[in-house]
């Protein structure tokens, strides 16, 4: 048996968690939150009564969903400085930094997925709910915000959380723009100390524990949802 030295984990724990995991969580949280909000907006635009608006939103969502995330990260990393230059009217490309670039990329990418999740949630709301809220005098915006969206989000909570778990794992792709997340930090330490196997085993264990725990939570939630929906339906 090769001599493993798991002490390297203890020695590098501060860096691994306070820098690596902190960035992973930062990106998951903000890209998740902002992407969710933008996804709702996209879902609204996709059901707009104006055909060009609907078409634009649909094209965006379908394009993003057809591209690998790594490709999108690359594209945005190189494009964002030019877009920013164009927006602020600067004479040369603006260095926005990899962190902002990654945050923007993940937000825009996740938004496309959240859009489809929210949309299927909205489509699942029975027509009678719309009729009932209209009959009470709610205006279309109130109807959407008070009746339809809360139900759509509630019904889709398991899928939304699953998407967040995927996002949490996908953030490790930021290595392509030289950012250091949890996995990146583990890799760096592993290479520096010649302990790659230990570090990758350890990071696998950490990802597994977090994601598996989260997925159990999701399953609990969806079971509860199914029960309450079944009772509404009866």
């Amino acid at each position, binding site marked *: 048996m090769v001599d493993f030295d798991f002490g390297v984990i203890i020695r590098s724990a501060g860096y691994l968690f306070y820098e690596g995991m902190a960035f992973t969580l930062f990106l998951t949280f903000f890209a998740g939150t902002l992407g969710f909000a933008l996804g709702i907006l996209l879902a609204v635009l996709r059901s707009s009564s104006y055909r060009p608006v609907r078409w634009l939103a649909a094209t965006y969502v379908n394009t993003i969903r057809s591209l690998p995330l790594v490709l999108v990260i690359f594209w945005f990393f190189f494009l964002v400085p030019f877009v920013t230059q164009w927006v602020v009217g600067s004479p040369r490309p603006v260095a926005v930094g990899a962190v902002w670039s990654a945050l923007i990329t993940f937000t825009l990418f996740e938004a496309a997925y959240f859009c489809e999740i929210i949309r299927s949630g909205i489509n699942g709301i*029975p027509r*009678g*709910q719309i*009729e*009932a*809220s*209209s*009959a*009470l*005098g*709610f*205006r279309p915006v*109130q109807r959407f915000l*008070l*009746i339809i969206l*809360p*139900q759509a989000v*509630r019904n889709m909570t398991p899928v939304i959380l699953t998407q967040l778990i995927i996002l949490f794992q996908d953030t490790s792709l930021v290595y392509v723009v030289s950012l250091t997340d949890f996995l990146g930090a583990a890799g760096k330490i592993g290479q520096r100390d010649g302990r790659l196997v230990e570090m990758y085993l350890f990071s696998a264990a950490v990802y597994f524990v977090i994601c598996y725990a989260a997925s159990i939570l999701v399953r609990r939630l969806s079971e509860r949802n199914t029960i*309450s*929906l079944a*009772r*509404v339906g*009866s």
Partner: protein
Amino acid sequence: MAALIDMKLVSKWYGDLHVLKECTASVTKGEVVVICGPSGSGKSTLIKCLNGLEQIQKGTIIVDGIDLGSPKTDLPALRSRIGMVFQHFELFPHLDVLANLTLAQTKVLRRAKAEAEERAMTLLKRVGLEAKARSYPAQLSGGQQQRVAIARALAMDPVAVLFDEPTSALDPEMISEVLDVMVALAREGTTMVAVTHEMGFARQVADRVIFMDGGEIVEDAPSGGFFEQPQSERARAFLSKILAHTAG
């Protein structure tokens, strides 16, 4: 007396399908009108036209002096003054019973929260469900849900309440608890238009019965007359089928 609800020559098509054919009828304040007829006769469509949930292609509908077809009409504002009770209750499943009753009061009528809650509790008491204020719709039986739905409609202090087959989705043992509430409302002078097969209810409290078939209003008669001497062959055939199993 001026009609509260007045429809003239109302026609509606779904594509080529002519679902309402020149329907003319009116409802005065305090009247209880039952709409009945075989399934597919257009009665649910007709009642949904009365608060603009369904659009009409021809004719006019005037409710409380307001023309539903006019582009100037503020449809949500008008709807807030017409209550509606649905076949499948349509309570909001993400809100508890109290919130189901107060949401439109506070957001549409802009009532203060305390006032809305007081009104809600009064109505829940009236339908016998004040103990369920903090329950969620999924925790209630069908009959209880429909009574909450009636209270929700009344909370808006509507000028009239529309009932679209309010007992059709209920198990038989729950029908009477809903009908009891409706009878009490009728006796208090609430203006009601009800699509229903409950002929007992119609006999007991309806002032008039409108009988529809094939998208047409075939008969519009005082309820006594309708049951004793239906004028049309179609109404006679319908009544003989529907009354065959309900003695008395």
